[in-house]
């Protein structure tokens, strides 16, 4: 995905934080729901003189606010791909329009059916909807600003997650041994190594196709096979329908490298790594299993790589992704759940 990366690079300076939030993200939806309901409660509280009155006001307001809010969210959810394409200010106008329209529509319905409808409510409701929309857009913009250094940081972390020097030097050593005995295999290995490092040195801040991540990981494993031989056994189980899903660049390879370093290298006999990738509707599940060697836990780096990948998952998917690990039956098991989003 070099083009995607270039695009991200070119807009990273200014355009990146001037973007509307992804209205399909659970975190964004939850924050919007909370903020609007809080604002409604606050509005009810300013009008009320007693607790009973507050409760009555809040119920009345909720009857008005909830349908408008849900309608607006549904519209924004549906329009999310469009909003990602149009300029920022057009998007902002769209959001204001949606909020105003939802408020007017709900008030109109009330006006038609309610007894003693007070026509003076309409402008107040409209003002409330626009004010809440303004506050939320401001909030998400600020949040974007706060996270854009984090996005640059993500690149740094991707760099840190890169292949250990330990691997590079051992691989070079193995290739040097091959040159005399099997020049063709040595050529192959160096090509693999070059390809691997080309991809590792690309801009890895963005998302990439799962298929690419798998290919990178296979290239890496070919090199490890060279020096570890029969000790390294890898079982892949990949759901073909998951391959076009988008995942953070350099998510899989560092995890598999961890599995080799902590699970296979410390064992004198063969050690098996199981990699399972499955898709369940709009969710991707990744499961990585490797032998667990408690006596080698002093080997550093495991937790750092995991924390790094967890952080990048959060940056890209917020609360919709998770990473969990456990030790079960002498094996180290790591699970990642994330939303399945095919490339547009």
């Amino acid at each position, binding site marked *: 995905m070099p083009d995607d990366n270039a695009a991200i690079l070119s807009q990273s300076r200014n355009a990146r934080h001037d973007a509307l939030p992804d209205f399909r993200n659970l975190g964004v939806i939850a924050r919007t729901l909370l903020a609007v309901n809080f604002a409604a409660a606050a509005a009810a509280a300013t009008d009320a003189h007693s607790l009973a009155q507050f409760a009555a006001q809040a119920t009345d307001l909720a009857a008005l606010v909830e349908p408008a809010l849900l309608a607006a969210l549904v519209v924004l959810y549906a329009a999310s791909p469009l909003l990602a394409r149009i300029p920022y200010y057009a998007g902002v106008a769209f959001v204001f329009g949606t909020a105003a329209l939802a408020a007017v529509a709900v008030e109109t319905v009330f006006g038609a059916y309610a007894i003693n409808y007070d026509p003076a409510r309409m402008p107040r409701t409209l003002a409330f909807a626009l004010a809440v929309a303004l506050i939320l857009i401001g909030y998400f913009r600020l949040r974007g600003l706060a996270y854009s250094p984090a996005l640059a940081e993500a690149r740094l972390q991707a760099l840190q997650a890169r292949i*250990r*020097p*330990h691997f*590079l*030097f*051992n691989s*070079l*050593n*193995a290739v*040097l*041994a*091959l040159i*005399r*005995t099997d020049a063709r295999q040595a050529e192959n290995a160096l090509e693999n190594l070059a390809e691997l490092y080309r991809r590792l040195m690309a801009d890895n801040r963005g998302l990439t196709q799962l298929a690419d991540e798998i290919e990178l990981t296979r290239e890496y494993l070919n090199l490890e096979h*060279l*020096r*570890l*031989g029969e000790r390294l056994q890898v079982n892949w189980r990949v759901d073909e329908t998951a391959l076009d899903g988008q995942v953070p660049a350099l998510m899989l390879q560092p995890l598999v490298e961890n599995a080799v370093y902590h699970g296979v*290298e*410390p*064992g*004198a006999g063969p050690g098996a790594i199981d990699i399972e990738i499955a898709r369940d509707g709009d969710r991707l599940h990744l499961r990585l299993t490797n032998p667990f060697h408690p*006596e080698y836990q002093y080997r550093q780096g495991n937790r750092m790589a995991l924390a790094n990948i967890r952080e990048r998952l959060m940056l890209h998917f917020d609360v919709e992704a998770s990473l969990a690990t456990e030790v079960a039956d002498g094996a180290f098991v790591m699970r990642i759940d994330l939303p399945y989003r095919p490339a547009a």
Partner: protein
Amino acid sequence: MNAPAPAPLRVFIVDDEAPARERMKALLGDLAAELPNTVVGEAANGVEGLARIVEARPDVALVDVQMPQMGGMEFARHLSAAAQPAAVIFVTAHDQYAIEAFDVNALDYLLKPVRATRLAAALRKAATAGPTPRAALERVAERRRHLAANERGRVLLIPIETILYLKAELKYVTVRTAERELLVDESLSQLEQEFADLFVRVHRSCLVAKRAIKGFERAAEADGEGAGWSVLVDGCEERLPVSRRQWPVVKSLAG
């Protein structure tokens, strides 16, 4: 010019990666003309290395640092038990911790990928300086997972977790496991330091594995100090007297 050719340098290779051993042998072959040498044996980890080194009788051991079962540092520390002093040259790909340890203790090491010229220099130095002193190897701070005893010329490895107690006896330390008793050439205070979390000193000359303490018994007379306490050890009949000085420490473990 008329001097007889010196005996070739006997080299032993320990590395868990087969290509790395092949590479080392190829380099040694290249150097043979200027520095006669012969590979007398090889092994894929420290345990295998200790089993084979006695027969191989090398002058020099080229030892990888990161290996399964037993790494290069522990292997080097057990060489004295093999009664097989050799010049040890460590080999590592990239292990900052190991390199620092070697630098501090003035031990020789090579970085992978190894260059022929560096290897030649290290071998020449080893040939003139002779075996690496035991003291230098002992200072390489890596926690061992075994103690090594020499039994009729063979190295016997005792996993630390099988040891019930250690008792100082003149120059040696007796190691007691559930099955047997062995002598190791070690110092008790050094062992106490190395395995402080696993063993407790119950007496001037005795360390007991904390996990093996079954209970305590009031002894009639211990060590001429009058009535005292003894430790009951799980897995053997013996009762080990606790000195008055150590009793508070030992007792606190029971709680």
